[in-house]
């Protein structure tokens, strides 16, 4: 037998072994006497957030006939190996008994996997998956009304309520409809937590109007909905627990969480007031999903197989059988050129706009500088807190995972500083264009700044044209309204307003999902316009800048008192016409400028 045949046989054997291994793969089953871990609950609502202490509760069951002393070890993993971060707890579990155990780990990154070990054996461990929430709102109801459905809010056992304020780090709102039976430490933790910014919602108790609180929690008797207690607040709602809905908390108490059901309400507020809440993760998540790039994969594979099949046939027929090699090379190169052209044409049919969404970068940790939003990045990293790539045209810090993507014009060497001429020229260009922007460098008041930017925003003849504008201060974000948007500058097609547009896309999304169930044709349904996509990008920028910027890069993000950070999205300047090779794509430039504010007093 020739080696080639042996190799073929060997490859068949490997494939058979592989498929056999896959086909016979089964769920891992524990031995009857093994320790069983169940009911794993992260945090207060099943989600975790980064940079936070999050309680972890789980049940340990000992199905054996003898009691066991266990050393539980909770380990953080970085995906390849254990990180030297370990939480230990020694417990005794009697025979046939299950026991509730609670850990309080510090979650650095919500995506980090954790492992629970109760022995050194390979079957004495469990990977604990976390469900990350970018800005999760953890609510707690400790109700004595068993009929209360509480609008799907998670309940928390009174007994296991954390007794340290640290453990309440991930809790945003505590909802009570009775006085819980807590220990002194638990009550103290609750009071400290409220002082540090926690919020309590007091509902109408069963058989009364107000909840009388005893020693330890009596401070709750003396404050009303508007009275702060330290940095926190206590609100009273005259509704019983059974009528309480989660959306009530989100809408009236937090005012930050935006669910799809509240979307219309918020958008109406936006239309009415000209500004929008800065945290719009739900909206952005929806937009991200709407803008997801869907390919017609059957078409792609069809093209690929046609091309490969043709090349195979040409090679074997003209190369191996015919004597004239010119035909072979001509046909090969010709097929390559034709296939390339066909694919290029197809890539522009129905895909161009979606492609543009993907070309947009999000300058998340917004620092002063001039950013190229046409550079490549991923929307998901911008939304989910990952790192992204962006280029800085001007100076300013560049963030990245151990890798910087920006080109600094100044290079420090042993002998001194060198100037990288091309980068320096680009920077000079950027500053020159910057000079064409509205003059906001003067000592303006906040109102003057808004007026100046509004005038620039609504002036369609300005150069460069400003498409979006926002002002960030240390405690607020104001997105400037485009009151004349109905006059056609940025109007997204047939939709009369952003609210209409989002409603329309939400409906389309449902249709598209149904189409997806049938095949790949659903991707043909939705194609956002260019301006819509840039709008999304800007929205994400603002949301992420404020939310992630504060959480992840507090030092670099904080806008000092007396200053404002202006974010402008303009046309891509013609002076930086880098898109000469692809003129269809027009970019946007993002300017982030720190300006001093003059006090109005």
């Amino acid at each position: 037998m020739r080696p080639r045949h042996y190799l073929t046989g060997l490859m068949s054997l490997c494939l058979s072994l592989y498929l056999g291994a896959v086909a016979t793969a089964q769920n891992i089953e524990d031995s009857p006497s093994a320790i069983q871990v169940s009911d794993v609950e992260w945090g207060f609502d099943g989600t975790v957030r980064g940079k936070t202490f999050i309680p972890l509760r789980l049940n340990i069951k000992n199905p054996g006939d003898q009691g066991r002393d266990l050393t539980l070890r909770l380990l953080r993993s970085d995906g390849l190996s254990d990180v030297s971060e370990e939480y230990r707890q020694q417990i005794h579990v009697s025979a046939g008994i299950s026991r509730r155990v609670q850990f309080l780990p510090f979650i650095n990154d919500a995506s980090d996997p954790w492992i629970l070990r109760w022995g050194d054996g390979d079957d004495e461990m469990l990977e604990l998956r976390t469900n990350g929430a970018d800005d999760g709102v953890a609510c707690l109801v400790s109700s004595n009304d068993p009929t209360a459905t509480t609008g799907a809010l998670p309940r928390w056992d009174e007994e296991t309520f954390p007794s340290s304020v640290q453990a309440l780090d991930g809790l945003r709102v505590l909802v009570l409809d009775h006085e819980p039976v807590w220990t002194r430490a638990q009550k103290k933790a609750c009071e400290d937590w409220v002082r540090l910014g926690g919020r309590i919602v007091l509902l109408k108790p069963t058989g009364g109007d107000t909840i009388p609180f005893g020693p330890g929690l009596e401070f709750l008797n003396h404050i009303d909905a508007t009275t702060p207690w330290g940095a926190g607040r206590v609100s009273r709602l005259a509704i019983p627990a059974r009528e309480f809905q989660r959306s009530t908390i989100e809408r009236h108490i937090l005012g930050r969480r935006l669910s799809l059901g509240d979307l219309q309400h918020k958008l109406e507020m936006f239309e009415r007031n000209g500004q929008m809440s800065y945290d719009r993760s739900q909206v952005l998540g929806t937009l991200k999903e709407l803008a997801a790039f869907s390919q017609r994969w059957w078409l792609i594979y069809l093209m690929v197989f046609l091309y490969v099949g043709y090349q195979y046939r040409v090679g074997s027929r003209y190369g191996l059988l015919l004597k004239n090699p010119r035909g072979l090379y001509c046909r090969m190169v010709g097929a390559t050129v034709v296939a390339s052209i066909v694919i290029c044409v197809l890539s522009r049919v129905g895909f161009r706009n979606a492609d543009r969404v993907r070309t947009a970068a999000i300058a998340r940790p917004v620092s002063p500088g001039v950013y190229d939003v046409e550079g490549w990045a991923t929307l998901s990293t911008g939304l989910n807190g990952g790192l992204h790539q962006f280029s800085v045209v001007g100076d300013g810090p560049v963030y990245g995972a151990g890798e910087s993507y920006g080109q600094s014009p100044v290079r420090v060497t042993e002998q001194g500083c060198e100037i990288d001429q091309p980068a320096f020229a680009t920077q000079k260009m950027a500053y020159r264009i910057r000079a064409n922007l509205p003059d906001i460098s003067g000592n303006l008041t906040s109102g003057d700044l808004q007026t100046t930017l509004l005038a620039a925003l609504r002036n369609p003849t300005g150069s460069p044209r400003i498409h979006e504008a926002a002002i960030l201060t240390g405690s607020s974000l104001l997105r400037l309204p485009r009151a004349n948007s109905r006059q056609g500058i940025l109007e997204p097609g047939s939709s009369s307003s952003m609210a209409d547009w989002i409603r329309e896309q939400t409906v389309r999304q449902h249709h598209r999902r149904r189409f997806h169930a049938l095949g790949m044709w659903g991707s043909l349904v939705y194609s956002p316009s260019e301006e819509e996509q840039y709008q999304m990008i800007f929205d994400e920028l603002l949301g992420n800048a404020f939310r992630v910027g504060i959480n992840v890069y507090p030092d670099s993000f904080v806008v000092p008192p007396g200053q404002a950070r202006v974010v402008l999205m303009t046309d891509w300047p013609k002076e930086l016409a880098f898109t000469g090779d692809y003129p269809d794509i027009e970019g946007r430039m993002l300017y982030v400028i720190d300006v001093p504010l003059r006090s109005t007093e």
Partner: protein
Amino acid sequence: MTDLTSLVFFMKLLALLSHTLAHQARCPVAHRLRIGNLLLMTLIVAMAHFTASIYEGVGREMIRLLSGLDMLLIVVAGSSHFGSVITEEKEQGTLGLLKLAGFSNLGLLLGKSAARVLSVLLIFLLQLPFAFLGVMLGGVSPGQVIAVFLALAAFMILVGNLGLFFSLVCRRNSLAVSLTTLTGMLVIWGDSIIGFILTAGHTRRMLWVTGALQWIESQLNVISIDDRLRAIIMFRGVDILGPQIGQSLGLSVGLFLGAWALFDRFTEGTESVEREPRLSPRRWRLWGTTHVWKNAIAWKDFHFPSGGWGIWLAKGLVLAGAIMAGMAFEAQYKAMTGSQLREIVAYGCVGLMIIEILQLAGNLFGEEYHSGTLPNLLLIPQSLSQMVFSKLWAGALHLIPSSVAALAAIGVAGKEQLYSGPQMRLLAWTAGLILLCHLTVFYSLQVKRGALAMACATLIVAGAVLLPSLAMATQMLLADQQIPRSFQGPEAWAPLAYIAIMGCGGLQFATVMAIHRAGEEGVS
């Protein structure tokens, strides 16, 4: 009349080129290579399909993978292909025959070098529609795709002409290929290496060296294909025709003209050059070759290709000296440069050991196969396994100085100083090295030259495309199963061990079959 003369001149000039192209058009191996390349691209598209639901910008990632793979294949496999363009004629003694056939120097160079460059260019050209799929998948523009391929083509032409030049200048194939690979790597990563040296301050007190290195770095920075590809993929504003293309092509033309000018000088007297017998006892005998050991194969392997006790001892002394020097001048070097000499010595020792291991793998049966002594070796009344063990034993003996030195250097420098990453990564590298050795042994019995390059190329392709595809296929097939996703314990190393064991086992089997086939061919 003048036109006719010019036409005849050009026809004669291009005669060898068109002959070679015609031969390659009918060559089944070239056809399989092209189709294999297209199937590989299909696999990359399937990977993009799988990841498209998870990540955005899949097209860009696809182009990044494609261009990185091509770049590595050009420098690893391409160097071997281009670096043997003249030396193979020298070694086979056929260069004189070509000259006698009336080919001019220019015609010879064009026919030998340009044909190879064009055939490889065709392989990469066939990838172009797949690259344009990247535009459809999102994340890259057509201009970027064209810029990537132009940059790669310029780099390949440069490596082709580097190979031509070194192949002309060197007498032996191995030296020409090594120099081509090394220079190709310098073109890719030279600026980064020099940048590292400058940043680490190794030349702080030597200003002229610093100045020279900075000048070289600036030049390499322009011509570096790695930097160019990064720039193209990362920034949309990069020109399609960057300075890298111009410099590479200019350098290529210079190398070609240099080869043309030096052709006669370096090919005179090579018509009858016979391959130097590398197993010549006189070449390596220092001492200790008089008494044959009981294990004659091990004795032969240890003393002749490896150099025997003399080289063994000399190597040990040099390495011991290097380690001692590293310890002695540590403080002085640190004060001067701020970096640790012991680390450099340790890295050097480990690198040397790996090079020796790969060299031994290539020579394990390759030396006998190429010198035609393998059939005679198989006639010795010993089983193949005994022979293999004897050869491995000789190899292990040969490796003692470098491995002991590597261990000592690691001990001196501190293990944590050299490597502090996850244990699994170290295991994966070790498994990769073992697989590379097996592949090298296998290819040394399959190809005339470039076994190591072929092995590296196979491993690169497998690592970049095949293994991720396998992982994705497993994930898709077991989507509804509860798989332990922890990267600890057996769950972590079992797949690695499975792939390594299956790969090594299969390659051992194939190698044994190749040895038997070689023996049978020799007998017949």
